[in-house]
């Protein structure tokens, strides 16, 4: 986990190496998930965020342990950047009892109360109201805690988004709305779904601080998140970041991608957040080819261990299925 900016300047090489490592961890984890899905080791649905790593890493880098995160169904990166172990996430992908949701949640419903990661959510905008409640609870208890809510540009079309931004603004709740604008709600380009595509402008209409950020530049994301979180912690009310990013791969494993040109994807790949930071650090002399290879090898070994542990882990017994529908003590 990377540290907050007040201890280390953003420009510090070591700190940026940490950010790079986190992004590489997410990238290699997800690339392995794609392979495992093709091999039918991972079942159900799988939505990877390859290309969007800078958002997960940059935002999580400025959070404290006590802060809360509410996420979406494309949340592997958010979970890993939040500090959940690859073992617990990979086991969850496998549906194993050692997974972070004991195998019940799968790819879309990673959950870790201990790390205040209140879940992926398969309902677009479905997690937003939960974030409002978490933040309201923190405000009532006068805790200096921030709740970050990740969601995509597609959530802007949902009524719940507008209910929630209004509630957060009205009650001046400590919420960071982290909008991952990857330009597509599944197969629908933003201009085909939103009458006004300037999302930060629309969020600002609720009377909250809102601004766009280059979501492919992890340092820019971190700086913006740090500014926003400082403001929120100081009692300034909610903030909204429009993190402009792009997913390099299909929406899910069943998406033929008829809605976008290969040339568009290629153009965005030129701004790959991992490549950008790697080139920058290399040019500055902060990252040698050997160090880069060593980082990749270490992360690959971490993924290997997570896969081996998931393979060996037990499934939840089918007879336990009826457990936890209700609490097991009567009122």
């Amino acid at each position, binding site marked *: 986990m990377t540290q907050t900016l007040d201890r280390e300047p953003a420009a510090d090489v070591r700190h940026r190496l940490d950010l790079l490592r986190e992004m590489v961890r997410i990238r290699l984890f997800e690339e392995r998930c794609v392979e495992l899905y093709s091999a039918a080791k991972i079942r159900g649905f799988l939505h990877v965020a390859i290309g969007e790593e800078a958002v997960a890493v940059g935002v999580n880098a400025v959070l404290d342990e006590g802060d809360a995160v509410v996420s979406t169904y494309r949340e592997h990166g958010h979970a890993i950047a939040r500090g959940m172990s690859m073992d617990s996430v990979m086991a969850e992908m496998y549906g194993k009892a050692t997974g972070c*949701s*004991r195998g*019940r*949640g799968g790819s879309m*419903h990673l*959950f870790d*109360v201990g790390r205040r990661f*209140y*879940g992926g*959510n*398969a*309902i677009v905008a*479905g997690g*937003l*109201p*939960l*974030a*409002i*409640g*978490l*933040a*309201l*609870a*923190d405000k*009532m*208890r006068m805790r200096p805690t921030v*709740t970050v809510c990740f969601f995509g540009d597609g959530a802007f079309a949902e*009524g*719940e988004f507008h*209910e*929630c931004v*209004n*509630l957060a603004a*009205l009650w001046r709740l400590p919420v960071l709305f982290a909008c991952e604008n990857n330009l597509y709600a599944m197969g629908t380009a933003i201009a085909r779904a939103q009458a006004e595509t300037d999302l930060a402008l629309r969020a600002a209409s609720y009377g909250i601080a809102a601004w766009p950020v280059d979501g492919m530049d992890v340092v820019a994301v971190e700086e913006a998140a740090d500014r926003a979180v400082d403001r929120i912690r100081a009692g300034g009310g909610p903030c909204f970041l429009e993190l402009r990013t792009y997913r390099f791969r299909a929406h899910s494993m069943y998406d033929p991608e008829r809605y976008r040109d290969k040339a568009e994807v290629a153009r965005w790949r030129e701004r790959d957040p991992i490549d950008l930071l790697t080139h920058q650090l290399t040019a500055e002399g902060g990252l040698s080819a050997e160090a880069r290879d060593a980082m990749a090898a270490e992360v690959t070994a971490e993924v290997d261990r997570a896969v081996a542990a998931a393979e060996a882990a037990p499934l939840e017994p089918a007879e336990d299925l009826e*457990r*936890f*529908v*209700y*609490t*097991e*003590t*009567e*009122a």
Partner: protein
Amino acid sequence: MAKITLAKGLNAGLRAAMEKDPKVVIMGEDVGKLGGVFRITDGLQKDFGEDRVIDTPLAESGILGTAVGLAMRGYRPVCEIQFDGFVYPAYDQIVSQVAKIHFRSQGKVKMPMVIRIPFGGGIGAVEHHSESPEAQFAHTPGLKVVACSNPVDGYWMIQQAIACDDPVVFLEPKRQYHADKAELDESATPDPLFASRVVREGSDLTLLAYGPMVKTCMQSAEAAAGEGKSIEVIDLRTLSPLDMDPVFASVRKTGRAVVAHEAHVNLGMGSEIAARIAEECFFSLEAPVLRVGGFDTPYPPSRIEEEFLPDLDRVLDAVDRSLAF
């Protein structure tokens, strides 16, 4: 002992729950300053403050989802849905989040939340203001659903629902809010929340009801007694889980059962109850289990509401058909 209405019973019950547990918070549209459309939360904001009785914008989904977040942090939110038909904008949160988070978190996160819904007709309101959506919630695993029928139950059941660690959809018969008074003994020991109750003993037929139809069925049983028919009436009280043992015992004794509710008959609670009686009491039955309910139409305008709502005549007609079978 004071005589109170259902509205007063619920108000007193909410007050008692808030006094007992500082984690209990009330939220909803106009619940604070106004005291609620039906005045169920009257005076509570004044006494407990704006942080514990929270006036919200018109945002049912936002309210319910906010309550989920509060419950995750250890609060016990009590959400008021202003009218039954207004619950549908929150349906997504209730079914997709409230009902599933305990399961999804492997029991690590509890959802001690109460969703109060004034339900049913009889006040001259129209569609969206007179509906009976109970079966839609009883059909959802992870939710519990109860319905009170009288002032004393209102007082105790709301406190028990708030104390319950599972999410409870709490149905209040709005036409009963100010209708009848009953004596409340605050030192009494209440029946458990998830238990049905025999409210009138009889030997010829079992009438099953909940919420507003309990009164109608009691009146029907009284009228039938005048014709020499002995009707047992059970107030089901809990719809999910159903407490069927007292029902089975009664039907084994009487051999006949009629289920009455305001909700549409098609796939209503009566369908499930009839099926369970058929499965468990088949050899005791002298007649098919009959269902009495609202017609399968949207709720009608007030001038024909009386035609729509099952009344004493429709209940007695079913009683007669069962006894004549």
